[in-house]
């Protein structure tokens, strides 16, 4: 009897009712969003060797030609542990996965493991979560590079990519591309497929993804901040006192707080609170953990805010030109009369110089991964 019962129990799930179709569709959408592209650990050795060899050959050709012109420096392998921190090369801060910037129109990237790319002309750069991939606007394409030989791709964007932002789950990239005098916002899968135009008229502002990767904020051509819902392909204009003059958008690294900045004020948008929290000529904003960091043009300190009271100030010893703060770390480009320095700190660490450049060097798209 027992074995007969056990046999029947083995098929008991066939007696369960059917799931409803709607539940399956929603579950599929959620599951696909959780999918992280990764290399198979059991991929054939031959494939791995071929991929690696191809990557080395391509990099060698590119590096050779650029190095001959004195424009590019590429190196692999971990550096010595006690290298001097202040150099003309970007140094990876302790506990960071990667750091990237556009320096005088050229790419400067270093990621954990020792991969470094410096000197490639580029118009924008975005690090993927954990700095596993680098997306860059090169020529009229959006190019994804994989430091450890994983798959990379190039997508013809039809114009220069002026800003790009990788979703926190790594599955999608939103980017702004210039078509003549017009700027378009696009969304593309993290594997380089399925490029979609989201808005045909936007500003050259880096989109900012919400922590759940289900939405991102951007600035429309009229200066209004818009939140685009990726799941429902819908958009919502952010009702704000800053409407019409938004220059920066920044979602907090956790939750759904959105910070907006105009040229003269900063505001944090959330239900029941739409205050302009800080005033002055705003140079940039970004989140570092729970704090909103604000840089005033021509000013020395970075002001750290929570929802309302000013929390404190960072004084990096110069005029802050650029702020890069998207997660729990912070990176700054700071000018003094004798140098432009890039300073960075991973979560909870002290700011330290990771790159020293001649004075008045342009630094853009600074990011710490």
């Amino acid at each position, binding site marked *: 009897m027992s074995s007969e019962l056990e046999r029947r129990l*083995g098929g008991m799930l066939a007696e369960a*009712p059917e799931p409803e179709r709607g539940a399956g569709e929603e579950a599929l959408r959620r599951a696909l969003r959780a999918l992280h592209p990764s290399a198979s650990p059991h991929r054939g050795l031959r494939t791995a060797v071929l991929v690696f060899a191809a990557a080395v050959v391509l990099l060698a050709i590119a590096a050779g030609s650029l190095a001959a012109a004195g424009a590019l420096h590429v190196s692999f392998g971990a550096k010595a542990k006690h290298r001097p921190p202040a150099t003309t090369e970007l140094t990876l801060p302790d506990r960071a996965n990667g750091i990237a910037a556009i320096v005088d129109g050229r790419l400067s990237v270093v990621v954990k493991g020792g991969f470094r790319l410096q000197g490639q002309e580029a118009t924008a750069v975005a690090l993927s979560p954990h700095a596993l991939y680098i997306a860059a606007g090169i020529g009229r394409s959006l190019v994804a590079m994989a430091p450890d030989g994983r798959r990379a791709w190039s997508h013809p964007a039809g114009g220069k990519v002026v800003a790009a932002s990788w979703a926190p789950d790594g599955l999608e990239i939103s980017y702004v591309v210039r078509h003549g005098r017009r700027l378009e916002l696009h969304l593309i899968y993290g594997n380089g497929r399925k490029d979609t135009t989201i808005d045909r008229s936007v500003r050259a502002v880096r989109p900012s993804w919400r922590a759940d990767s289900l939405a991102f904020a951007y600035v429309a051509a009229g200066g209004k901040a818009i939140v685009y819902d990726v799941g429902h392909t819908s958009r919502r204009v952010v009702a704000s006192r800053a409407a019409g003059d938004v220059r920066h958008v920044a979602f907090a690294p956790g939750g759904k707080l959105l910070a907006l900045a105009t040229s003269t004020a900063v505001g944090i948008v959330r239900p029941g609170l739409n205050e302009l929290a800080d005033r002055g000529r705003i140079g940039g904003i970004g989140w570092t953990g729970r704090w909103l960091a604000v840089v005033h043009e021509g000013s020395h300190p970075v002001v750290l805010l929570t929802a309302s009271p000013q929390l404190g100030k960072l004084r990096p010893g110069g005029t802050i030109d650029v702020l890069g703060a998207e997660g729990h770390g912070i990176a700054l480009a700071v000018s003094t009369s004798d140098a432009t320095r890039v300073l960075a700190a991973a979560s909870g660490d002290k700011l330290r110089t990771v790159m020293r450049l001649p004075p008045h060097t342009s630094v853009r798209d600074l990011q710490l991964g």
Partner: protein
Amino acid sequence: MREPSDRDLVRRARRGDREAAAALFRRYWRDAWRAAYAITGRRSLADDVAADGFERAFAALGRFDERRPFGPWLHRIVANRALDVLRAERRLSDEELPERPDVSPVHALGDRSLLSAVAGLSLERRVVVVLRYGVGMTPKQIAGALDLPVGTVNSRLARGLEQLRESVEVEHVE
């Protein structure tokens, strides 16, 4: 054309191929949902639990050993998620919990079905029975998942089977 194997789909999915991932989902969604339903006994919970299970499985696909079968791995994730949810509801404890799920009113086959009989078990017995016979986990795996001694799992299985046997025999008499 021959259907791609689970292993092929997993390989493609872990490289970011959404079509392969969707095919994998469609292949296993119904079974995963039914397992969640059999454990939780509620449609609404089964929806959440199965969806969470797939979400977690896909997020962890990079760590999945593709030489192993995908189905049991997914079911273990779903079963563990179901237990997490039930624990969160404070419905799973060392004491017997008499709560009956909503199987009977919803299920077209009525209370004569084996599933209804399983649904009549206390939660702690029902969980081990579903994990053992519906999902195919070994007593040792169940013990690990529930953080129970293997002996306790075996005893709950034995008591659950005994109760089910009585229930089935009663059906025969009727």
